[in-house]
């Protein structure tokens, strides 16, 4: 078991209501978990709790426990946790450290902090730049990149720390369609490499395509944690992928009685 969240609750200092309450779930090694929910449903708070920003960065009242690879996040400093679990945030721009002048050096920021020897640093930097297709930008100033490139750089910086779990908090919400495509190609690589990924996303087509399971949050509580087909089939309140909507409208369920959520599953049904 890679992640174990046990009865997690959190209220920000000064907040009237609990941002999270009674959240319990587990994630296995290599699973791809989508996290959905309306605004203010606690998605980003959950992401912060998974990487240790709660309770180490945000002040507030925390209940319950989060275990990452067996480590209790309350007892482990972020500097240590970040080598187990990485996070990419919404705004590409604010994830650039600002202390480095080139893309290549930017990746070294976290590695210098953890005290990695120089030769290993170079090896890792070259590997992640290549992996996310930004090796040709290595001498550019990080701030001169496009949104999609910057977000892939943010991902590269995190992946250079070699975490086994990656949390992506709406990584494409501030990008143009081209940037979204670029970032999803990189996310696909994480999945290929067998990493455990938790993706917070509003674009349900992407969630449905990648996720093994979807975790649905509502008002800080866990409403449902199941396969995409069951989530979109049994929660009429949420926006289902367009494929599901089409098949529901045409009344074309799959053999198991559920409606498809991906293009791949939809085509054979509609061909008849």
């Amino acid at each position, binding site marked *: 078991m890679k992640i174990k969240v046990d009865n997690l609750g959190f209220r920000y200092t000064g907040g009237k209501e609990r941002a999270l309450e009674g959240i319990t779930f587990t994630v296995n090694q290599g699973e791809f978990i989508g996290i959905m929910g309306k605004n203010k449903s606690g998605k980003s708070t959950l992401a*912060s709790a998974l*990487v240790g*920003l709660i309770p*180490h*960065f945000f002040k507030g009242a925390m209940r319950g426990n989060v275990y990452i690879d067996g480590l209790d996040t309350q007892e482990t*400093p*972020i*500097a240590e946790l*970040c*080598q187990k679990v*990485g*996070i990419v*945030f919404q*705004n590409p*721009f*604010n*994830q650039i*450290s*600002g*202390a*480095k*002048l080139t893309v290549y*050096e930017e990746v*070294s*920021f*976290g*590695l*210098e*902090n*953890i*005290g*990695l*020897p*120089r030769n290993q*640093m*170079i090896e890792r*930097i070259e590997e992640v730049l290549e992996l996310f297709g930004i090796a040709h930008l290595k001498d550019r*100033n990080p*701030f*001169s990149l496009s949104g999609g490139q910057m977000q892939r750089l*943010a991902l590269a*910086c*995190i992946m250079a*720390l070699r975490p086994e779990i990656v949390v992506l908090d709406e990584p494409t919400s501030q990008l143009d369609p081209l940037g979204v495509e670029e970032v999803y190609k990189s996310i696909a690589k994480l999945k290929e490499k067998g990493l455990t990924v938790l993706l917070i996303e509003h674009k349900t087509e992407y969630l449905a395509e990648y996720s093994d399971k979807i975790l649905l949050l509502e008002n800080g509580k866990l409403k449902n944690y199941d396969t995409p087909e069951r989530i979109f089939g049994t929660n009429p309140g949420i926006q289902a992928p367009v494929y599901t909507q089409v098949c529901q409208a045409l009344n074309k369920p799959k053999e198991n009685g559920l409606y498809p959520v991906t293009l791949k599953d939809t085509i054979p049904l509609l061909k008849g």
Partner: protein
Amino acid sequence: MKVYTLYVPGKTYIHKMNPLTKLLYLAVAIAIPFIAPDPAITMACFLIGIFILGWAKVLHRVIYLLAMSILFISTIFIIQGLYYPGNTTPYLILGKLTFYKEGLIHAMVISFRLVNIMISASVLVLTTRPSDLISSAVRRGISPRLGYVMSSVLQIIPQMATTADTIMDAQKSRGLETEGNLKTRLKAYIPLLGPLVLGSLVSAQERAMALEVRAFNATGKRTFLQNEEDYTVSKAINAIIILALILTIIWRIYS
């Protein structure tokens, strides 16, 4: 993209030199003319500076800097020429204004020192990447947090300026008057402040989170991507610079 640095990339030995050696050179080259107020020594420091800048192939950039300081230097000549306390020998009379020889000589000494400071500082500033200087300082025990603040400011302030321009454009497009007399222009800054300050606070928090998850607060020993250049040569140069300082002090005491 705007970057607030005067660094000129290059591959000369001066570029590769330990930034702290250049910092030491800067301190000593400024101190010597004050310790030994002999114009010949100031001149020597000045010529050494020019020689180093020529070696680093950045002399043309200094001429530009010096040109910008002409206004300032000319005010020194005017003030000292007119009002220097030791003024006795009139040198130049322009209408009601009398410029005195002593004042002008004093102004020349001050200007020379000033130019010397600019030349010596240019050696450091034009041939050293700010991040290299800071990382050298962090290696010598300056707190990495302080180092981060110093290096990020150079990049994040231009970013804030860009954000300010964007906000200004957005408000102009909604009819805010930003051009005209001083009062109109000052008034235009007020609606800029809210979004800029609040936006910067939000960015600062997000950036703090992003740094945090990249082990910014790690307590262990840090390593560095950039290799430092050969110590032995730097040490020898440091020794020469310090020797020059000591000799100047001795010369001053016994003369």
